[in-house]
């Protein structure tokens, strides 16, 4: 740069300067070309993965068709494959996690956007919540096994003993199951919900809040009747995005969900999710089982892609984007 801009009377130096300017132009062109290739490459990669998975799933698609989605047996011995218990387990565990994480996440978001505490303290707090996203999945799984399950098991057995007539509590706890899985999953998606809800809450125009306060609204009124309604779409979008993340979560769930391909209404019953089954059975799968697993991955991919697309659309509309994530 300095060579190109430095004023120099000597013609020779000027010539060198031009040469440098020319080179920098070439470099610029090269750079923009490289970024173009990289960004379209990413899009192409996504399509390629989808095609490849679809291609590998083809034998299973031909064999089972759409009946695969409503089949309830996953029996590699007899080559009978049905995805319903896995789709059910994936959706239910994610929905349960969302049910736990959304109130918590929104509460955290309100706490860090209101000035209850000095900004410095709030920033530390925010940082700590976001740090939850940096903990590896397997650590969550281990924590779930050694901390959460010993708490949920007696709780589940007590609820089953006293309120067993409610379908939600209809089985005794066998250790791993929906409840510990959903609880750990909730903590894993908490940072997503908290961060996105906070940025949605920040979009509330200050004059509105100040005006309401001037008219005699308490802080409680302002939060409930001004900030939250304005941020509602953004918070909803955050929840949907978190749902998409929860559905693809693998390792912690494989360790906590119990890996039993059944459909049970009970919170304490073991279940299985698509991602967990994939992680567990790919290594030893052969023949049609591989195709069935690919079919399953394709379903999971479509589910998470669809949910993420919906979330992005909602967030786009509210201006609270995933930019800072």
């Amino acid at each position, binding site marked *: 740069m300095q*060579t190109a801009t430095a004023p120099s009377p000597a013609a020779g130096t000027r010539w060198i300067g031009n040469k440098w300017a020319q080179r*920098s132009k070439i470099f610029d062109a090269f750079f923009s070309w490289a970024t173009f290739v990289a960004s379209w490459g990413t899009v192409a990669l996504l399509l390629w993965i989808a095609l490849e998975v679809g291609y590998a799933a083809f034998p299973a698609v031909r064999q089972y068709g759409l009946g695969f989605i409503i089949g309830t047996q996953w029996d590699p011995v007899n080559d009978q494959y049905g995805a319903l218990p896995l789709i059910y387990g994936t959706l239910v565990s994610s929905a349960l996690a969302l049910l736990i994480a959304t109130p918590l996440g929104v509460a955290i978001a309100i706490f860090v956007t209101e000035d209850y505490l000095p900004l410095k303290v709030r920033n530390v707090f925010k940082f700590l919540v976001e740090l939850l996203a940096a903990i590896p999945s397997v650590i969550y799984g281990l924590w779930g*096994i050694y901390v959460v399950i010993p708490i949920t098991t007696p709780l589940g057995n007590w609820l089953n003993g006293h309120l067993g007539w409610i379908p939600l509590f209809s089985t005794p706890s066998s250790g791993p199951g929906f409840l510990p899985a959903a609880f750990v999953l909730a903590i894993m998606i908490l940072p997503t919900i908290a961060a996105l809800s906070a940025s949605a809450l920040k979009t509330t125009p200050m004059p509105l809040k100040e005006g309401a306060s001037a008219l005699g609204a308490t802080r409680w009124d302002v939060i409930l009747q001004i900030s939250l309604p304005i941020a509602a779409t953004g918070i909803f979008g955050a929840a949907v995005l978190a749902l998409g993340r929860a559905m693809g979560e693998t390792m912690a769930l494989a360790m906590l969900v*119990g890996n*039993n391909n059944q459909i049970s209404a009970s919170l304490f019953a*073991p279940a*299985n999710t698509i991602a967990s089954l994939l*992680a567990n*059975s790919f290594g*030893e799968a052969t023949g049609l089982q591989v195709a069935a697993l690919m079919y399953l991955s394709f379903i999971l991919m479509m589910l998470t892609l669809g949910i993420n697309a919906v979330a992005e659309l909602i967030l786009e509309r509210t201006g609270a984007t995933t930019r800072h994530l």
Partner: protein
Amino acid sequence: MNKLNLKMKNLLALSILAALSICSVQADTLTLNSSGATFPAPIYGRWFAEYSKLHSDVHINYQSVGSGQGIKSFVDGLTDFGASDAAMSDADIASVKQGGVVLLPMTAGSIVLSYNLPGVTGAVQLPRDVYPAIFLGEITKWNDPKIAAANPGLKLPDLPITVAYRADGSGTTYNFTNHLAAISPDFKTKVGGGKLVKFPVGVGGKGNEGVAALIKQTPGTIGYVEYGYALQIKLPMAALQNQAGKFVAPTPESGSTALGQVELPENLRAFVTDPAGDGSYPIVTFTWWLCHTQYTKPGVADAIKALAAWCLTDGQKLAPDLGYLPLPANVVTKVQTAVSTIK
């Protein structure tokens, strides 16, 4: 710009250097690549380390990726030899492009039923009609009359039985379920034998360690794990009733006795689903190496033959310490003959 270019050049030079240093190998060392079953991985790891100490010119890579993947890589020619708990099917053998395949049983192991019964001291004895029924979800309490009748000396608690199984496809499940299918027609029709089966009840853990964690955590849980693993983490192991009607605890001796009952066929592929004999522990299995009959790469055939010869003699002595079963002498002789056919 100048500075930037210089930096980029440096970076480029550095990365090329790094790539080169990764690629460089000592020219005089022969590397054998292998992959497969996780079950024998600890003993293979030990064997290959010991062998490399004695023969510094041979280096052996073993990746424990699972029997299925091990067979796949071997068929695709990515490895020099594979390893599998379920040997190799005729269809898989036929798909190998490069000549014939020799199956070599190299070591063996027992699969045990471990449990968590607080307050119960002494091994629980499980009759032949009981443990398949437990894994079918038909016997659901520890104080079931059928269990109590076989354990007059023990005070069994009124606990529900939680079944723990392997959630990942595994040779352990393959051999365990094939044994259950062999002794219980009910199990054969309802579940069947395979690397991954649909157990009607229970919770699944990933790997031996996952099943062990399930057993340790919930009182009343019973699950199947490899003998060596149960031994290492001191899980209680049930004595099982064998074909002769005797209750036998899993030990290296009872396992070897069971292996000695088998007459290996020509291709050395035999599954010991229900061994005869008074002293036989009922759930034992061989685990195999998969080798080509002919190798084109120079030196590979000789290296594999020398390695196999060492593992079949000195290597067997390491087996009991690691929780594996030493091969009976008659089996070793047969495998040695098979090794000599590799060219």
